[in-house]
């Protein structure tokens, strides 16, 4: 039980290296990777079953790694990390199923590394460890966009890596400074989150440090102004990567803010709160309007992701229980919905070799199942009641009104924002008459339905019985919120 | 009686002239001769210090240096001929193989 988390973390790595050393055939590779992702899912489910909702940080494992600088292999989970871990564990088998036909081995290796990196980010309790995984999950993405992507893939891969690394460099500096300060004030080196949280800084330093962390996460999320890597990267990415990018990676920015930002810097983040909220509000409106005239399905939903992530971040920064619950709920449900939509865009692209909206249309009349699932995920993104997105948006909006009236009004605009472009997109993609590329559009196969159905079911359950999930992280959230508010006072 | 300073002064000045020649002139011959000049000035310094300390080590090194000068002369002159045969000139500016070439448009 103690090592379950480590197994989740290292199984994909182990599989990747073993497979790489033996240079197995593509058939074996896809079987084994799929099997390993199922194993990870199983482990994650086991972890969940042993998880104590009231228990705070659990499954903690701590062993010394680079002892001279106090860097430890320190991992653990609380409810929110567990939620993210479940998400990635659930999505990976689906992604492997979705790329079943893929002949290039690099896909599988990179995805395995990516899974390990993301799991590491979620579990890490040591800042250096966190940083290590944070950067290592970027590499597979860089490689995959660069080698298997579309369009201006090299440029876009460079753009995403330069912008995100720029942010994480500032974070690294801050991390090292924190560790050094711990050394000078306490007497020994440590990068353990719980230790660093005890440090006290004068206000100017802490604002700078918080800013450095914030920059890294703001680029990753991305908030308005740091977003120009987003649409190009999404449009150049292969399906598997775009699913991970939108469903998990972007969320990790928010997670990082929650886990590290709010634990380390309660007070200085208060200094940034108005600005971040402003950026989020601009983002909500800006991304929605921006998406209207995009011509490429991936870019449209990239901006939709951006708008939702702004909303999640907004929820996080308003620091009341409604907004936090809503933000985390949206984090989960939007991950599922956007994974669904991007998987479907991948399926669409495989059929038509073309995801330019202008060339699509009429799919509903010859492929009703495809149309149903596509429309379902699109509507789930707009937050139609009955899907989890509605619950989340409702909570965030209520929280926003609790925070400030006008913030609430703009936050409520998400209800308008998403539909502006999504309905027009649906019209041009699914409805109308068929065109050249959609004339022989094949409906979804049984496997594809198998991939998508779990996501649909999850979205429906989260929409109809939200208390199931909300109660799950309510305890963690309330505790952290109280701690945070206590810190501010 | 001469002081060592006099010798050293002379050596330093010759060294400086060698440096100036190295920077100032483009002709490979002059560059070569400037380098020889500097080597010789170092030689002189070695000899002087050998005398200052009354030990033979400096002199021996100086002797070895003379051999090095000879070797250097052989190589350098061979190179000059080589370059001359390629470029038909002994201009140091004509050798630009080390330049950074922009490969993208």
């Amino acid at each position, binding site marked *: 039980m103690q090592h379950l988390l480590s197994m989740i973390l290292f199984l994909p790595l182990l599989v990747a290296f073993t497979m790489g050393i033996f240079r197995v055939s593509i058939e074996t590779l896809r079987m084994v990777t799929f099997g390993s992702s199922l194993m990870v899912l199983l482990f994650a489910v086991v972890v969940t079953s042993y998880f104590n909702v009231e228990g705070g940080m659990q499954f903690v494992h701590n062993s010394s790694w680079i002892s001279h600088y106090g860097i430890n292999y320190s991992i653990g989970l609380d409810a929110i990390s567990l939620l993210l871990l479940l998400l990635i564990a659930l999505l990976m088998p689906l992604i492997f199923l979705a790329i079943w036909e893929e002949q290039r081995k690099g896909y599988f290796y990179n995805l395995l590394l990516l899974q390990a990196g993301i799991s590491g980010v979620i579990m890490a309790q040591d800042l250096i460890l966190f940083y290590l995984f944070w950067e290592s999950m970027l590499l597979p993405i860089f490689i995959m966009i660069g080698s298997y992507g579309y369009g201006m893939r090299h440029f876009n891969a460079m753009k995403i890596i*330069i912008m995100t690394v720029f942010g994480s460099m500032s974070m690294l500096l801050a991390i090292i400074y924190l560790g050094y300060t711990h050394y000078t004030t306490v007497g020994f080196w440590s990068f353990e989150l719980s230790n660093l949280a005890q440090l006290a800084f004068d206000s100017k330093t802490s604002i700078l440090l918080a800013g450095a962390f914030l920059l890294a996460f703001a680029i990753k999320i991305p908030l308005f*102004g740091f*977003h*120009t890597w987003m*649409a190009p990267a999404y449009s150049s990415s292969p399906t598997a990567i775009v699913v991970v990018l939108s469903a998990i990676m972007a969320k990790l920015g928010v997670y990082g803010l929650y886990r590290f930002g709010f634990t380390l810097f309660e007070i200085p983040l208060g200094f940034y709160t108005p600005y971040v909220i402003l950026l989020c509000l601009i983002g909500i409106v*800006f991304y929605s*309007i*921006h998406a*209207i*005239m*995009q011509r490429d399905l991936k870019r449209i939903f990239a901006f939709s992701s951006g708008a939702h992530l702004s909303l999640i971040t907004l929820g996080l920064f308003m620091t*009341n*229980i*409604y907004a936090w*619950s*809503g933000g985390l709920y949206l984090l989960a449900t939007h991950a599922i919905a956007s994974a669904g939509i991007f998987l479907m865009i991948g399926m669409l692209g495989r059929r038509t070799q073309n995801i330019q909206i202008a060339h699509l249309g*009429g799919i*509903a009349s010859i492929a*009703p*199942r495809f149309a149903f699932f596509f429309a379902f995920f699109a509507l789930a993104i707009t937050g*139609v*009641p*009955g899907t989890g997105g*509605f619950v989340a948006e409702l*909570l965030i909006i*209520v929280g926003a*009104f*609790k925070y400030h*009236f006008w913030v*609430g*009004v703009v936050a*409520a*605009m998400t*209800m*308008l924002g998403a*539909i*502006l472009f999504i*309905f*027009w997109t*649906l*019209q041009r993609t*699914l*409805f*109308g*008459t068929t065109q050249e590329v959609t004339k022989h559009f094949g409906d979804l196969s049984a496997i594809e339905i198998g991939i998508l159905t779990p996501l649909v079911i999850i979205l429906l359950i989260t929409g109809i019985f*939200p*208390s199931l999930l*909300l109660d799950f992280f*309510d305890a963690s959230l309330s505790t952290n919120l109280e701690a945070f508010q206590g810190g501010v006072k | 009686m001469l002081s060592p300073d006099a010798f050293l002064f002379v050596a330093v000045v010759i060294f400086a002239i060698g*440096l100036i020649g*190295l*920077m100032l002139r483009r002709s490979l011959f002059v*560059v070569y001769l400037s380098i020889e000049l500097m080597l010789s000035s170092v030689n002189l310094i070695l000899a002087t210090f050998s005398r200052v300390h009354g030990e033979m080590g400096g002199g021996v090194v100086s002797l070895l240096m003379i051999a090095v000068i000879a070797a250097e002369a052989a190589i350098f002159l061979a190179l000059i001929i080589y370059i001359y045969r390629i470029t038909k000139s002994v201009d*140091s*500016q004509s050798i*630009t193989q*080390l*330049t*950074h070439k*922009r490969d993208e448009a």
Partner: protein
Amino acid sequence: MEALLSLIVILPFLSATILGISYLIDSKKNLSNTYYATIALTTPAIVTLLSFVLAFEISTMPHDTPLYAHLFDWIKVGQFHIEMRFMLDRLSMIMVGLVSFVGTLIHIYAVGYMQDDEGFGKFFAYFNFFLGSMLLLVVASNPIIMFIGWELVGLASYLLIGFYHKVSSNITAANKAFIVNRVGDFGFIIALSVLFIALEGKGFDFEAIKEGIEGLSSSTLSFVGALLFVGAMGKSAQIPLYVWLPDAMAGPTPVSALIHAATMVTAGVYMVARFGFLYNEIPHIGEFIAYIGAFSALMAALMASFERDIKKILAYSTMSQLGYMFIAVGLGAYGAGIFHLFTHAFFKALLFMGAGAVIIALHHEQDIFKMGNLRTFLPKTFITMLIATLAITSIPPFAGFFSKEAIINHAFLTQHYTLWIIAITTAFLTAYYMFRLIFVVFFAHSTKTYPHLIPLGKMIIYPLIVLAIGSATVGFLGIGHGFAHFVALPDRATPAPTHLLEYGLMAFNPLIAVGGIALAYRLFGTNPKPSKANIPIKALFIHKFYVDALYDRLFVSTLRSLSLFFDRVVDAKIIDGFLGLLTGGYRHLGVKLVSLQNGTVKTYATYIIFSVSLMSIALIYILEAQ
């Protein structure tokens, strides 16, 4: 009883799911229409039965003890505690009965109407889904659950308007409907949130709100009330959010009958009545609602008078009648408003279904000026539609007379004479445009024949007859305010009229209507011609006051150009431009440094010497310093 109440909502969703999955699995079209029709019809029939059972139960109980059915806790976060709980009081009982009864009839009608459509199964999946959502809306015990139903009926409406999805303009209409509705919902959700925050900790059920609002300031309440009404504007097609309703006629006719006439569009009225206790605190907002309703009624009537599409005439007529309802609920006569809602559901559904019968008989012809003399060919349709038309023009003793008269008189008695004049004018116009339709479609061109007329099936005709009986009789429920007393809504007090005044008013309304009929007969009785836009004011009416063009210019084009601006200027020029300055600066520096590396050895030697000389200076300095 509780289980029955839950079943009312759950059953339609269940059958919608079954139908939907069957339709999706059945890609080879092996399942017959009978399979779908059986499931689709059983559900509303059972729901209707259940609702009658419950109605019996409710009407024997005192009016202030509603029936509750608690399903599960929906959300419980902090003070935000929303239960999935249904409430059946007399108001929702009326609505449940109405929706399920009229819904059942329209389902039957739709089986006949959609018989040849390849999306038969899908249609009924949507239809049952709508029914469930509408029932969820009306039995919700708190505004959040109500809002869920509110949104879901919008979604169902979107799906059904765009049912013929191969024609892109239909989808445009569907999008318009959904988006405009969402604009209304935007107001709704803001109102709910503000109300919740104001009442935080006191619970959010309707009863809790009723008790809670007493402590709130009038300005908060006015704000909430006004924004709630914005939601109603969207759903119930009032100025300025009415633009979607005429376009929504792109859907199949049963959809127009069920959703865009009888049930969904009246949700706004229902909501205002549901929040009657709140609007009673803020009568000035109520007046505002009444004026919006009045102007909508008038404007819709004017547009209907010049419309040529049979369904759009009825759509404007719906909007106009909804305006009447808002006059009533705005002035605090909730009972009268709901009564008009009730009667209107019968005759407007009937009108749409009759129009649908005509349309299907004529191979999907919708222009009334291409019809005529149909009374000889479609006698049953003619009779039933005539009854409905008499009802809507408030000719006694048909249903509309009682309900509309109550509203118009209420406006007069509460001394809102402007409203009264508008209402009377609209009544005149209603009679005019409705009989214009009847005359043009059924009387004119008395020699016209239709060789290729499609015979109408029983499934289409029988519901018409049932509804015609309803349209003729349900008005009597309202005699002596019986209906209003039964519903027991918190009506604001009205001054009692003298008998003379009462009878005067009662006689006045039918007279006005008869005037309208006479005008219609004079213009369209024998040889009708479509109106031409020969004078500016007519052009204004024919072009729908240019509102569509205005909205298009104001919102659609602006958003599109803004989107392009964001893409091409903000992103590409400003943000990437700024980043470009950074990266470009880096690159330029690189280019500058590259020129230092010019490949000539001499230059490199110079660098070395230069560096050495710098070091020398430093060394001298250091040595001197020691």
